[in-house]
């Protein structure tokens, strides 16, 4: 994908952003990680979060996936509240079941893969389509095999995850996330735990998804070339704030802030 293509290509019917953070605050005990954070991600947009470790990038993904609880503020997905809503000026937590309905639109791939070791590759992939979306096993298996084909692991359907290499496990994890047909895909340093020679396969799969689907992507990565190639927008975080943002060309070639320049020179 040419880096010049910087606008999301989806013609989404809804005018709501795919993801919207409104006055988000997140603290872990006395430590405030995110404060007064506001940003939106358009449907079909691919946004990369960069910044030094501890700047809150991963926390943002985890908040969207409801793996962390919001300390304050709101997150909206497709314009609908995710975990808390404002009811007549009062901040009210949504029922867990409602939040779970919302998260079916969101998929996440983790740094450590987190495949279920007690299930085969195929069982890993069909677990949620069968037990969350209510698909039949036959239908889910058929789709799972197509996804495995797509990530280049058609022959591993009946293998157990522990028998696979890290790169293969991560491609299964990507297939597992895609099996839920998510509108939003969160990628949390998905290549960081991989041996260097296995990174390429995983990134290749992700490039393919970026090129052939209109899934909204929010990614945290240290693979700057990959970020440059697939993102529409790059957001530089520091101290829980957006320091600067823009198209990858602008951020990588002509950063405005000294902090961004020094960060990029340390990772590139």
């Amino acid at each position, binding site marked *: 994908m040419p880096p010049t293509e910087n606008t999301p290509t989806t013609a989404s019917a809804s005018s709501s952003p795919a993801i919207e953070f409104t006055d988000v605050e997140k603290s872990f005990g006395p430590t405030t990680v995110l404060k007064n954070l506001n940003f939106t991600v358009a449907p079909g947009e691919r946004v990369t979060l960069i910044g030094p470790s501890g700047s809150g990038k991963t926390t943002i993904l985890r908040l969207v996936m409801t793996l962390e609880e919001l300390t304050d503020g709101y997150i909206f997905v497709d314009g609908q509240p995710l975990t808390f809503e404002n009811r007549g000026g009062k901040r009210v937590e949504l029922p867990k079941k409602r939040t779970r309905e919302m*998260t079916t639109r969101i998929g996440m791939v983790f740094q450590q893969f987190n495949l279920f070791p007690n299930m085969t590759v195929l069982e890993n992939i069909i677990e949620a389509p069968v037990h969350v979306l209510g698909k039949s096993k036959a239908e889910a298996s058929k789709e799972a095999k197509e996804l495995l084909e797509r990530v280049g692991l058609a022959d591993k359907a009946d293998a157990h995850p522990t028998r696979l290499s890290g790169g293969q496990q991560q491609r299964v994890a990507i297939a597992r996330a895609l099996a839920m047909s998510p509108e939003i895909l969160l990628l949390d340093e998905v290549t960081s735990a991989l041996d260097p020679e296995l990174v390429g396969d995983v990134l290749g799969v992700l490039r393919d998804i970026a090129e052939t689907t209109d899934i909204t992507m929010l990614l945290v990565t240290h693979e700057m070339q990959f970020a440059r190639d697939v993102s529409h927008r790059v957001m530089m975080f520091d101290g829980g704030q957006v320091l600067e943002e823009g198209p990858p060309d602008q951020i990588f070639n002509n950063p405005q802030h000294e902090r961004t320049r020094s960060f990029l020179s340390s990772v590139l």
Partner: protein
Amino acid sequence: MWNWEFAVEALPILLRGFVNTLIATVVGTVIAAILGLILAVAIRGLPRWINWLVRLLVAFVRNTPLVVQLLFVYYAFSDIPGLVDVPALVIGFIVIGIHYSTYMSESYRAGIDSVPPGQFEAATALSLPPVRTFTAIVLPQALRATIPSLGNYAVAMFKDTPFLFAISVVELVTAAKNFGGSTFAYTEAFTLAGIIFLAASYPTSLLIQRLDRRLATY
């Protein structure tokens, strides 16, 4: 000294007693395994005061001797009309099962705690409901870590069954004692009893060790 005639005579009597030992162990283990899981899991969602009450009962069961519990239940419940006819063996495996459930619940809890947080996070990311997450992901992984220790408790329970003599269940050791009492062939009777115990529990321990190794990897 050692009399082979007595030994041959004792063996079928002892094996009949051993049947009661086995029944108490197997049924007791089933009760302990199920109740232990309930103690480890189900009480988490209960109101605080029930939780507190259960924990008090668990502490009570763990900190009093099994014999005392057997005698207490045997005599206390024999006063209740309608329960008079409950066989001592039934009281035996229920009490021994409850006793060991308090230990097995700890094994379950440790097993559940050994499931990495990433597994729960992946389940959340897939929007799996809590019950499905527990039954399909957490429990199968926790059991791998738990089953060997449940097996060890089952062997320990097996070796505790002689306490059932206190409530007049004729298990292996009581059968040996009775045989000795009527023939004075105590040496033959108890030697055989020991051999039968060894013959049953040693292979079981080896089996558990092998199981442990097999469960360690997927």
